[in-house]
């Protein structure tokens, strides 16, 4: 009896350590002692396996109209600012131009440190993949319309080798097909809240939906970009979690 108990315990331990190894390999978790990047979003970070923002993975962002596209790019810029931490290089790949560089300073990025690449539609994926393979980069942002499962798998494999953070922004995709990414994000602008009794706009505020997190807990959060970092709005009335 005791022997059987012991065996199940041992099995459980083995199972747990194997699972951890798998997570590390998939880039969802950092090996012990590895420096963690703090993106300043505790609530969202808790939802990921390993309780940390996975930097070795592909994040998929979906937006459907110009306003949410702007919100998504703003949110990505905020993430980039935290990831780059004022150093390193970043590649921004998109088929069309559209980002207004002077805006990036607000998110803690010197726009001259981002390399913008505008290949034709055909070469966008190739460029993103090449960027993701280069471990000298901190992050690669790719703007693309459609992404098939196989293509996303390729990108994920490239990231698992190099450890570069990949962020794929899909603007107006025809269908939200499942892809091999660590998380799917949807950012919507929310009405900002100025200081009490004062007219005018407050900080940028977004609704961050995470309908899909691999091995994590999906949910919806409200986030604000404060002076120079993210702030979660934890008013109990608004905070909801998908079940």
């Amino acid at each position, binding site marked *: 009896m005791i022997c059987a108990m012991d065996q199940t315990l041992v099995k459980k331990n083995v199972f747990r350590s194997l699972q951890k190894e798998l997570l590390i390999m998939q880039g969802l978790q950092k090996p012990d002692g590895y420096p963690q990047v703090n993106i300043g979003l505790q609530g969202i970070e808790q939802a990921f396996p390993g309780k940390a923002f996975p930097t070795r993975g592909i994040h998929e962002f979906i937006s459907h109209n110009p306003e949410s596209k702007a919100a998504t790019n703003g949110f990505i810029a905020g993430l980039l600012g935290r990831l780059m931490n004022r150093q390193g290089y970043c590649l921004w790949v998109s088929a069309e131009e559209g980002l207004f560089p*002077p805006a990036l300073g607000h998110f803690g990025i010197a726009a001259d440190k981002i390399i913008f690449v*505008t290949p034709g539609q055909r070469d966008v994926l190739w460029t993103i993949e090449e960027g993701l393979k280069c471990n000298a980069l901190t992050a690669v942002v790719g703007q693309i319309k459609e992404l098939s499962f196989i293509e996303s798998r390729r990108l994920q494999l490239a990231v698992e080798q190099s450890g570069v953070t990949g962020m794929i922004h899909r603007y107006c995709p025809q269908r939200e097909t499942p892809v091999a990414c660590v998380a799917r994000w949807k950012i919507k602008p929310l009405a900002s809240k100025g200081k009490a009794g004062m007219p005018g706009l407050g900080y940028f505020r977004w609704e961050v939906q995470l309908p899909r997190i691999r091995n994590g807990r999906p949910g919806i959060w409200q986030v604000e970009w404060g002076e120079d970092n993210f702030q979660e709005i934890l008013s109990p009335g608004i905070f909801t979690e998908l079940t």
Partner: protein
Amino acid sequence: MYRRFAAIWFCNLTTDWMIRRRPALYHVPFVTAQPAQSRMVVKEVSPVAQDKGIAPGMVVADCRAILPGLQVFDHQDVCPEKLLHAIGEWCFRYTPVVAVDYPDGLILDISGCPHLWGGERPYFTNLITELNKYGYHVKGAIADTVGAAWAVSRYGRQRLTIVGDQEHSILCDLPPSALRLEPLMLERLTKLGFYRIGDFIHLPRKALSRRFDDQLLKRLDQALGHESEMIQPIRPIQAYVEYLPCLEPICTVAGIEVALTQLLEKLHVRLRKEGKGIRSCTFKGQRVDGDMQQITIATIHASRNVAHLFKLFSLQIPRLKPDLGFELFMLESPLVEELLPDKKVLWEVGGSDSENEVSELLDKIAGKIGRKAIRRYLPQAHYWPERSFRVTFSLKEQPEVSWPEQLRPIHLLPRPERISVTPGVSGDSFLFFVYKGRMRKIQKMDGPERIECEWWIKKEWPRDYYRAEDEEGERYWLFRHAIHNMDKPEWFLHGFFS
């Protein structure tokens, strides 16, 4: 070894060059002059002025008195050294060994060359005629020694002399200055009544060396060929080209790759020796049917990393059409740059290794989609939004001013789009506007921020910018023209905030 030398003397090097540059000077008497002891002294004289009795060494003021129409140019403006060097490089078509003989001559080692022109006389005539065609007045001589050729080219009677065995007798007739001696020694020789080389060539060597230093004997020996004389040839600029001929025509990708690797390794050896790196490189293949195929790569930083360069080329190899096969491969690098062991800093952060990797990545991307597709943005000191940044293709360029502090939209429309704005019902300050078929009701607004266009660049109405937020939290950057048409303001949408 039996050697032959040719000496060419440019009688009016700088003036000929000036006539060549400005043909109008051909009929005008002119001189070049340079200051000496607080007066302008004539340095070189044009042929027309020579006929009128002007000679080098005269004072410009005197010349002007003789010839009021004389034009005077500053001698500093012409650079005879550079000019001679250029002519020397031109002479490579006659012999590979060319030395510049300052200030007004060239020495050519022509051993083993004249037979290609059918003998020394046709060879030399051809050379002199070609130079004449360019407008240079020259005299030349061929002899067994540099000294003899030099002496005869300057003091010989004919325009073109070829000296065979009679070197000794010809030299005897020339004045001592033909031996390239220093002025002091020449003066002493003249004082003693030696007006010709023949006057002292037979004197005992001991006596000569006692009186005139070893210099005179050395020059004599050099002219007669008893002592060898070295010349310093101009080094031709060697192109960075490597060739690989093939025994059998190559038509497979694997074969082309092997050839490319071999050529790159050959070039790498030379580049490493010289401390250089490739900026652009062309790989050419000569097909059996005579057609030439080529692919070109370029790098952002100088590089001599064979693996990296090979990767860049390999993206383009499918473009080569071997057809029946290539029989000759060429690797040419028209642009090379210094590549010092200490790597240059791309940006002040990050290790040098990562910089290299990034620039190699960008080379690869540029190889496929073109250099113009990769860019960085730098801030510009302009408030006008369209001019607030500029594009740069360089990776090293640093911003000169800082990025603006003001809040700016993350997306800017390429052109402001006109929107029709309806003020809300009286009593509330809401605005409505329609964009892309949807009505938006503005809830909050910040502004205005007036931005004026620089009148010296372009005349446009100043804009009053507002940050606006609608019910759903979507944020816009709107403006209306200030001053202009204030009764019925025109509104424009110019961007989206995040």
